[in-house]
């Protein structure tokens, strides 16, 4: 099994490090051809406006949407969650998501960088040490969406819809591999 990490921008290296720690074969995905060589895909953290532009500049919107529709597992962290959402309430001019998950997200929902934080969250019933960096929140999740993590204040910060997993936080920054293990489990089943 080979996991691709979308590599045009963002914290690609951190995802690759965790995956290799888990003993998984990885590939940096920079073009449509690479999508044919992987079994699952991670959309990393980064700047979602930039990712949206780059996806169009390099004609990757359709191939990515086809990959998602094919049912192969896709995991988005932070900017990756924004890319997967069907609705981004405060998107920048020209920013377009991949419109894949039935969720509505708000960008920078906690505030500026001063409001970024580390925390231990309960993810799918297990504790995970994660980081929220200028993180988004899920404002609304559709019927087919399973909520995997909420903060104390009720904010939805991790969701799953069939083959798609999205977290508002970065599990890739803290060295905790439990969320990636969960994703690999999705990819194996």
């Amino acid at each position, binding site marked *: 099994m080979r996991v691709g990490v979308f590599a045009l921008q963002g914290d690609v290296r951190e995802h690759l490090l965790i995956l290799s720690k888990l003993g998984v074969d990885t590939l940096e995905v920079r073009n449509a051809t690479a999508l044919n060589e992987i079994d699952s895909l991670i959309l990393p953290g*980064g700047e979602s406006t930039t990712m949206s532009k780059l996806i169009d500049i390099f004609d990757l919107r359709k191939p990515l949407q086809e990959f998602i529709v094919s049912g192969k597992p896709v995991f988005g962290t932070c900017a990756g969650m924004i890319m997967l959402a069907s609705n981004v309430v405060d998107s920048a*001019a020209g920013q377009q998501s991949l419109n894949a998950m039935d969720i509505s997200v708000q960008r920078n929902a906690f505030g500026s960088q*001063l*409001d970024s*934080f*580390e925390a231990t969250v309960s993810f799918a019933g297990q504790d995970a040490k994660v980081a929220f960096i200028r993180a988004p929140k899920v404002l609304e999740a559709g019927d087919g969406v399973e909520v995997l993590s909420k903060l104390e204040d009720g904010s939805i910060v991790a969701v799953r819809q069939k083959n798609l997993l999205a977290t508002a936080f970065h599990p890739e*920054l803290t060295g905790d591999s439990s969320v990636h293990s969960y994703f690999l489990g999705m990819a194996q089943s």
Partner: protein
Amino acid sequence: MSPSKNEATPLVKRGLAEMLKGGVIMDVVNVEQAKIAEDSGAVAVMALERVPADIRAQGGVARMSDPDMIEDIMKAVSIPVMAKARIGHFVEAQVLQSLKVDYIDESEVLSPADYVNHIDKWKFDVPFVCGATNLGEALRRISEGAAMIRSKGEAGTGDVSEATKHIRTILGEINSLSAKSEDELYVAAKELQAPYDLVREVARTKKLPVVLFVAGGVATPADAAMMMQMGADGVFVGSGIFKSGDPVKRAAAIVKAVAAFNDPAVIAESSRGLGEAMVGINVSDLPAPHRLSERGW
């Protein structure tokens, strides 16, 4: 469940820089330029009153920008906004933190406020990026709390040669450090004038503990891609975009070239029809007192 939220930890500060990797950070002096930067795919903007080329041309003391101008830009864009404080000017940094900018650049592009000490960056919750010309300087800044390093280059010139020199120096010194045996690292730390623990960490991991961008003199898509091929995590472009003939086109072209830095066909494509590049000054023609990269130590 979130028993404790820990804000402003080193991981949180360094983490934002990790998210900017593979991206272009653009100097902007007003809302219009900030929007152009965001539209073209910049990962962040640096809000300042005068780009380095103008600071150079106009001379005088260059200081932190007007808070109104910084706040206008923060309101206008959704990407992170950085702003510059003078080297050692901890009150300018306090002001920028109170404005809630996302990153502070303690920058040699402004006139230094202290010729001995840099800002004690551990005292701040906002992360800092600092310039460096070599590994020792980078590690001294990190030991003071910098959460991101940019090689200095020579800002406001459009001459990429100093940027090349500084990124090559930093990465070359990391390489030679990683080839040393453990017992050689004590003297290496002495020679680098950097804390031993950081020196040992770099020797082991073969990289800085923070993200390393390049700045100072990048003017074309090929310049930017060259910095990426040499091993930069990303690129700052100051005067190179908004002092050129067609900023909208050039901004997008540099973003594209950075994302596809290993693909000459894409770089060729993004180099076409950009109009005039910024005029530029050869660094070798600059008298030493006018070289910004020599500010900071």
